[in-house]
């Protein structure tokens, strides 16, 4: 798959930035206010002088007016760690779904790179894949494209194991976007909880397709689970198909409710929906981009 965006779309992306509900401390200077005071450009507060403080930050005008040595404090602007966890399990192997997931990842990467955020792309399936950190600056987007184009869907989905592994490595807290179809036999709740517990600002990007929503065939069929290879002979009747659709709707609603309860952002990205429409409308409506 060739992941390339046209210039007009890229310009539109440059006006967007990833919204984090909280401020996280970064490592490098960047566009985002960090929770600590430091060598920023924007005045934040005063405090009393202590020996050893930098004389250059003493507010001499305040000293003249108040007769006390006060030190000027500035907000420090740092980068935002953004972790893009991309589901590369077999259930995503359906071309449209994986394409949509990778395009979304690429677009979020470009937005983050434009704002000098620290992007980490983490593919996962039954476990974490090879992480990729493209660097800082929008010029690195081509490296992102190259990385994502090599992604192959394989293996089952295990959100719990993958996110536990993600949590086991020391990481800065930041924004975690999980781009997945959330079709995990054990459910997605535990995995998302793990991410939330680590203090990350979590967004769930639910990629769904027609094949997920509805029965693709009627009559006597043998369904084969793309991830596990399990087979099941089913006579798909209209009633059964309706029951399946209802079950899928219930499953989707349950994920959305869970995300709402645990302050996890939720955006649904239909694979059949135009990609630009998802980025420019759905993500903004979901308060993921601004």
């Amino acid at each position, binding site marked *: 798959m060739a992941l390339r965006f046209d210039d007009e779309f890229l310009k539109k992306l440059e006006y967007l930035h990833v919204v984090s509900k909280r401020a996280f401390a970064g490592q490098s200077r960047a566009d985002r206010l960090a929770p600590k005071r430091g060598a920023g450009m924007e005045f934040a507060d005063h405090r009393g002088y202590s020996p050893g403080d930098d004389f250059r930050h003493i507010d001499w005008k305040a000293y003249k007016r108040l007769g006390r040595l006060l030190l000027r404090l500035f907000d420090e602007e740092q980068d935002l760690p953004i972790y893009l966890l991309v589901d590369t399990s077999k259930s995503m192997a359906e071309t449209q779904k994986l394409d949509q997931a990778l395009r979304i990842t690429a677009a979020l990467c470009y937005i983050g790179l434009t704002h000098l955020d620290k992007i980490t792309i983490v593919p996962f399936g039954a476990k974490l894949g090879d992480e990729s950190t493209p660097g800082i600056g929008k010029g690195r987007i081509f490296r992102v494209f190259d990385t994502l184009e090599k992604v192959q869907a394989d293996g089952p989905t295990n959100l719990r194991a993958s996110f536990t592994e993600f949590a086991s490595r020391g990481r800065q807290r930041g924004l975690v976007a999980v781009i997945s179809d959330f079709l995990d036999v054990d459910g997605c709740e535990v995995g998302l909880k793990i991410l939330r517990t680590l203090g990350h600002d979590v967004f769930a990007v639910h990629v769904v397709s027609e*094949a997920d929503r509805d029965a693709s065939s009627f009559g006597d069929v043998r*369904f084969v*689970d*793309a991830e596990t290879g399990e087979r099941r002979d*089913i006579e798909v009747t209209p009633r059964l198909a309706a*029951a*399946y659709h209802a079950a899928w709707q219930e499953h989707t609603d349950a994920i959305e409710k869970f995300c709402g309860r645990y302050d996890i952002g939720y955006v649904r990205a239909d694979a059949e929906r135009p990609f630009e429409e998802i980025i420019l409308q759905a993500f903004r409506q979901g308060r993921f981009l601004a």
Partner: protein
Amino acid sequence: MSFAAMAAWQAWLVIGVVVAAAAGLFLLKLKPPQISIPSLTLWARVLDEKRDRTLWERIRKAVSLAIAILITLALALAILRPLRTPPSVANALGAPRTPDQGRRTSIVIDSSWSMLAETSSGQTRWDKAIARARSIASGAGGEEVVLSTTADGVVEGPTQDVALIEAALDRISPSGGADAAWPRVEGARVTHFLTDGAIARALEPDVLVESVFDAAPNVAITAFDVRPGVTLDSAGQAFLDVANYSPAAQDVRITIARGNASVLDVKVTLAPGAAVQRIVPMTRGGDARLRAHVSATQNALVIDDDAVAFVPGAQQIAVVIVSDKPESFGPLLSQDPAVHATFISPAKYVPGPEDVAIFDRNLPAAPSRAPALFIAPPKAPPVKTKSGSIAGAPGFLANVDMASMNFETVHSYSTEDLVPVAFSETHEPLVFAHEEGEQRFVLFAFGVNDSKLMFAPGFPSLIASTIDWLAHPIAGGVRHPGPASFSGALASLTGPDGKAVPVTQVGSMSVASLARPGFYQATSGNATSVIAVNAGDPEISDLEHTRLAAAARTDAGASASSGRPWWLLALGGALALLAAEWWTWQRRVTV
């Protein structure tokens, strides 16, 4: 029940096998198409839930199985073409075969003229019967087949060679024969009688009557003949009956031609079921052959549109009286308008073109070629064969009261060669008659003047009857086509097409088949008679009705009401079921 395509046991076997095959194939677990889906998790959740299935969902497979079997059964029946069989026939078919019971299938085809009626499908009833006979023969399953018609009796078989039966079916055609004997076949297991029921027949209960009846409108000449004239200048009256056997009124054109001259040409409108009669007087002289014809729009049968009749009194009988006392006969014969008498003395007589010669008390030196009446000859004329002598009372004595004549003098003749046919009260032989191929004569053992018979009331009648019998070997009138028997020996019989018709001599009777309507010319002892043969008959021509009882007949591959073979309905039903099943499957209505 029997089957058109094959023997019953084979058909039942085929039905059993195809139904079992259909059920087996339906129940066979075919490998379903594999479809890869992202996850079975949600499907498992749905399937593991206990769901209430509707009644339709529960019986859907059983209904589909039943429909599959029905489709297969309908297709099988459409091919095998079963026939309803009366209980008696069913018993005959189902009864265990006795050792002396042969494996024979008898096919009898009704050869009445009504079978030539054209049906709504364009076929004639005969065509349908032939097609049905072919299917019976081909489905006989190794049994011997005997093919018969009601007119000709057995025409082929018994044989297992279907090709012979096929060839015979190509050969035969309707030829009337309503009066012919029912063809009996020894050892026949079942007798299929293919008929339209136009003629009522008393059938045995084990005959399987298969109807080819299909109602058709028709206009026909139902009667055409000539009544003899009673005056000197009248040869008689031709009378004609025309009937309209159709459900609608029709304009009918009626024509009668005498030789080449038209004597009637009218148009009449006939109401449904109505008949019209026309009487046309015939004068003496002129052509004796009459031809009538009717034409109408709705007319399914052609053969009854034409009819013929012969005017017997149109031409006088040329009689030569060889006598030295012609005054004895002069007044008598001159009173008979049907006779043209010529008197000649015995010395001057030479055989001529006369129709009848009368030798009064003499014998010609050379035998007469014409039929002769010998009145008290000096001795009996010589006969070629003794078998020509008639043993019973010939036709000319039927209406003569011999007791009204007083025979004073009776000559005696040797009875070695001749057999007397009439006796006096004292048992003396009075009349001898002889008839063989070219010799035909009557001998009176009494003289006209010897017994003063000229004044006897019965004598003119005796002379007239004798001359008529001698001149006309068989009685005229109109006959229907089919086997016919004639009293006496016929030398030859010529059909309407000019070809000789085979004549079989059975005792004192001659038997021949008058297969086609038209004029036949019969010759015996140098005398000639013309026979008019007409097919038209109310029984034959009324094509709107059948005498087959509805309950007693089976349909020979065609519906009696619509003319549409019912196996087409079976085929249509199967296709409809198939379409319904396919549609519901495609539309996911029932799955």
